[in-house]
């Protein structure tokens, strides 16, 4: 509840900041539409040559594209800008202002900057997902829907914890922005089912850069191909990373020397 209220406050601040640049919305929308359009057109080319792709039907891959846009939109809207600001605050010593506030500092740094216009990615992604769901229709039952929601939550926790861990490295090292950038460029690979990739790359995308859990696994759930062990594994990893990132944050803050503030 408290989290939602805070998120709403930062969301409002984000909107206030952007209101003087309203036309940005149109350009953001245009970019999102272009990106989504290319992704879908690419799929159309692929499926003009085959009816299933590595066991995935067209609508299932479309659902995966929707999930990809949804998740990457959420990252671009809240997680990435907030984490970039955290790194900056550690360098410049302005983290003091956050630490002195009477609220959990990890929560504050995680949602402190909201790029409101990235909502276009989220809305378009959700739209594509709904269209894919309608077309999959009867195949999606109660169990599939529940597994989808659960795995999406686990995936979100995994992605968030991973970003936080990378960003808190700023307490030890000077140039961490580059690592964040490498992560976001690798995230692109999550647009396709990770099962397509050779084993070494699949391993990287599952554990080193945990993209698989945020995109492929929820899509598998919708397709009714998610096994119990995978879902349990996703939750175990989410719990582990959530605790680990909390530890990273705690230890990091203790090292924080408020330099140059």
């Amino acid at each position, binding site marked *: 509840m408290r989290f939602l209220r805070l998120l709403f406050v930062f969301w409002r601040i984000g909107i206030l900041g952007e209101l003087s640049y309203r036309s*940005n919305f149109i350009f953001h929308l245009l970019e999102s539409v272009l990106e989504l359009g290319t992704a879908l057109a690419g799929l159309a080319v692929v499926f003009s040559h*085959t009816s299933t792709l590595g066991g995935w039907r067209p609508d299932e891959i479309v659902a995966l594209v929707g999930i990809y846009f949804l998740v990457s939109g959420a990252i671009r809207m809240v997680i990435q800008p907030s984490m970039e600001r955290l790194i900056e605050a550690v360098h410049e010593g302005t983290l003091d202002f956050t630490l002195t506030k009477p609220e959990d500092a990890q929560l504050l740094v995680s949602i402190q900057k909201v790029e409101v216009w990235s909502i276009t990615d989220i809305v378009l992604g959700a739209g594509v997902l709904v269209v894919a769901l309608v077309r999959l229709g009867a195949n999606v039952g109660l169990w599939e829907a529940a597994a989808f929601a659960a795995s999406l939550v686990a995936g979100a926790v995994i992605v968030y914890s991973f970003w936080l861990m990378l960003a808190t490295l700023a307490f030890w090292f000077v140039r961490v922005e*580059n690592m964040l950038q490498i992560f976001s460029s690798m995230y*692109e690979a999550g647009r396709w089912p990770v099962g397509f990739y050779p084993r070494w790359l699949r391993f990287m995308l599952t554990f080193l850069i945990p993209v698989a859990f945020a995109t492929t696994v929820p899509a598998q759930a919708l397709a009714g191909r998610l096994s119990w062990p995978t879902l349990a594994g996703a939750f175990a990893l989410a719990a582990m990373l959530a605790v680990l990132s909390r530890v990273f944050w705690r230890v990091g803050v203790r090292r924080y020397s408020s330099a140059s503030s």
Partner: protein
Amino acid sequence: MRGLAGIYAQQFKVTMASFIQYRAALVIWLIGHVLEPLIYLVVWSTVSRSAGGSVGGFTAADFAAYFIVLMIVNHMTYTWIMYEYEYRVRQGTLSPDLLRPVHPIHSDIADNLTSKLITLPGMLVIAVSLGFIFRPALHTVLWAIAAFIPVVLLAFAVRFVIEWTLALAAFWTIRTSALNQMYFMAMLFFSGQIAPLELLPHPLRVIAFVLPFRWTIGFPTELLLGRLTPTQTLTGMGMQAAWLAAGLVLMRVVWRAGLKVYSAVGA
């Protein structure tokens, strides 16, 4: 002419020094350039397996060869000038460049070539490693390898001139990112980056023939893989020359008009 050579040599040293400082940026570019062709390589290999071995005459090994060569061609011809110009115009850092007695494009060309000299060995190592993983089917012919050299140079020239001209849009608007995105999306489709152009539906192939994108990436790739006849190669070089000429004319016109509206704010 000797003055120009000196400028290039100097720019070479400057770029070298800055790359040694910013190694991480280099790695990020490299990952971007490897990941995209790698993704489509994997997707199309999966398609060919799903379709029972081959799609439109491409087996998984052919796709591997296509996308690995495409990765190198793309790396040899790419520019990042569009991201830079917006900054130059917005911050006014273009002004000192304009005071110099040479056209600013020369330092950009030297900058671009230097960075490629530095990164190309890394790219070739990656290409060879990917070759060991994906086992590409390479059957090229000798004349194609010989023709590849002028063709890839022309491809670089065409892409450089077009993207440099497009970058000048920054003189009129600071919101160039939507424009750049449109350009890149068109490029993705019509250059052969998403799929070999033979696999696109016929109308799209006709559009791809007219637009410049194919001639900067897809064409050198297909040539090196021995997929083109001598006639097709000559036609392609003709298209490259035509686009280079058109691009140079356009560049002059846009550059002159752009300088007139440039207000050097922030300088």
